[in-house]
């Protein structure tokens, strides 16, 4: 039975749209039916949703960079460069941080200054300020599909403009673009805004325009245990499916232990499929995205290539549908286009060399999958229970109660009582489990993992271990051992 009662009524949305489209002058350019017609007219090879579906069937892993600069011609040049020189299979359009906070006035100022000074003063592409036509030029100018990537609690206007322009994929979600990206925004509000976006994407889908939606998997990017990001991913998949979305890509940020990373990608797919089927959405096309290490990087480019490659290897061996690629400039600042293309090519080489190989099936892998599954189910089931039929309410209450709790998140909606640390093999475990509703044996498991590491290092598990782990990869290690 579909959770249809959670779907927003399109007429109500239409009313809300009239308000949203006036938030910035460019809103008036939006004509979603024309947008849907345009998207339907795109060849399969330029539709994000369909390319991912095809990759899943072929069992291959596609590459996608992050990239966005303020001025439109420069942005198109950048994307073409990444497509041609980086051989990117999929392209992004990364939005600047003012737009993400709906500060279009500051974005306008940054855009103007960037134009005037001939250098970027914004850290991304202010798509709202550019408006529908300019955005359409990005789609027209590229040969592979392009996705909007950002971090916006209220992205309604951004979605309106970019979908109408012909973008076929839109990253984000009411939880994953709030908890790591905001401080004060109530979850009710961001989830409601993202229900609007999902309903809009669903509307395009109804009109035959396939749109891919992707919750932001890595969250804070720093030592997030798989069950935490899986829970958020599954809740957002349900929220999106309820609004009529048919193409969903779920994400996971590399932790660094190959067994854990493989288990994480595999369970993400299986668990989400289960929950979607249970909720009455067996027809959603589910794919996965693996993010190369999202925490602090080494500043040395040669070392950064090593981190990138380990991530590419894990993505290939775990058979993620796509991999989001870091660059050798990660710890230096926003990358040059050359560095970005380098990260892509390094990744592609590793993917190609490993695409005919699989991470070996072992008891340890099965054990890790079981652990992640049990943990994730504990969180998601409790959240759904709290929601009592409303996924949205469940999510809000789960965060309020610390049932789902993201480490290092800036948001006050997040309990902030959990603390992760690596075990002796580098898998990310919990040092503190806060209020996570785990069974006793799971709690014991995490305690034991960290106790064993403590023994190896001759120290008690503590926050110092966490700090050491935060720095570790940047300093050329995985586990932050004391010196």
């Amino acid at each position: 039975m579909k959770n249809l009662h959670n779907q927003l009524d399109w007429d109500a949305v239409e009313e809300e749209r009239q308000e949203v489209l006036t938030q910035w002058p460019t809103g008036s350019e939006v004509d979603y039916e024309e947008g849907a017609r345009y998207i339907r007219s795109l060849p399969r090879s330029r539709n994000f949703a369909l390319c991912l579906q095809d990759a899943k069937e072929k069992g291959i892993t596609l590459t996608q960079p992050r990239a966005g600069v303020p001025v439109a011609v420069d942005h198109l040049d950048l994307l073409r460069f990444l497509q041609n020189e980086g051989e990117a299979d999929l392209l992004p359009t990364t939005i600047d941080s003012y737009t993400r906070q709906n500060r279009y006035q500051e974005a306008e100022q940054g855009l103007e200054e960037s134009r005037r000074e001939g250098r970027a003063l914004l850290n991304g592409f202010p798509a709202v300020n550019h408006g529908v036509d300019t955005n359409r030029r990005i789609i027209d100018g590229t040969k592979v599909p392009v996705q909007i990537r950002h971090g916006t609690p209220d992205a309604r206007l951004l979605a309106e403009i970019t979908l109408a322009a012909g973008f076929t994929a839109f990253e984000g979600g009411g939880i994953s673009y709030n908890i790591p990206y905001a401080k004060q925004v109530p979850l009710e509000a961001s989830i409601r805004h993202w229900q609007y976006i999902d309903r809009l994407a669903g509307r395009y889908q109804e009109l035959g325009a396939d749109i891919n939606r992707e919750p932001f998997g890595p969250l804070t990017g720093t030592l997030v245990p798989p069950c935490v990001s899986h829970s958020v991913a599954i809740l957002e998949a349900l929220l999106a499916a309820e609004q009529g979305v048919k193409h969903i890509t779920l994400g996971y940020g590399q932790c660094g232990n190959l067994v854990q990373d493989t288990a994480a990608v595999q369970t993400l797919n299986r668990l989400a499929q289960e929950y979607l089927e249970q909720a009455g959405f067996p027809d959603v096309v589910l794919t996965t995205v693996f993010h190369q290490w999202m925490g602090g990087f080494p500043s040395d480019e040669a070392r950064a290539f090593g981190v990138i490659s380990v991530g590419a290897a894990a993505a290939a061996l775990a058979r993620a549908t796509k991999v989001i690629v870091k660059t050798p400039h990660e710890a230096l600042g926003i990358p040059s286009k050359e560095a970005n293309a380098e990260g892509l090519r390094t990744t592609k080489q590793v993917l190609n060399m490993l695409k005919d190989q699989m991470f070996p099936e072992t008891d340890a892998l099965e054990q890790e999958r079981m652990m992640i599954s049990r943990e994730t189910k504990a969180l998601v089931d409790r959240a759904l229970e709290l929601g009592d039929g409303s996924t949205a309410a469940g999510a809000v209450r789960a965060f309020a109660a610390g049932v789902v709790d993201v480490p290092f998140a800036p948001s006050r909606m997040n309990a902030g009582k959990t603390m992760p640390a690596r075990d002796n093999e580098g898998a990310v475990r919990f040092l503190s489990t806060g209020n996570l509703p785990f069974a006793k044996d799971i709690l014991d498991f995490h305690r034991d993992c960290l106790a064993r590491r403590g023994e190896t290092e001759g120290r008690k598990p503590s926050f110092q271990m966490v700090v050491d782990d935060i720095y570790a990869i940047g300093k050329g290690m995985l586990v932050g051992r004391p010196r």
Partner: protein
Amino acid sequence: MAEYTLILGVIGSDVHAVGNKVLEVALEEAGFHVVNLGVLVSQQEFIEAAIETDADAILVTSLYGHGEIDCRGLKDALIEAGLDDVLLYIGGYLVIGSQRWEDVEDKFRAMGFDRVYPPGTMVEDFLPQLRADLARQRGESH
């Protein structure tokens, strides 16, 4: 040792929370009284907190690249609020992309920052300098 009060915060629309958390814990351990405003902090919030807590120093973080825009006028506002003797530090990825560090440092010094630290600065890298600056400042102003 007299206790010094430090204000921490990540300025503007920046949400990078991890380094901010690490700084808070490390500076508390180093014996400071730390008032951490977290992420997404406006210029006004920095100033109010400094007045309220009679702070000795403000440590601004900016990682996301808009630091240049976000920090414009901060020093003037501090002076206007009578906080000219509060030490003003900044650290992080202060501009977009990787520019020559000397130029970045000059730019932010000219904007009124007493010390400007590059990406990847560890607490042990700036702690001696901070202690020395604080001691000198207290010596001068008391």
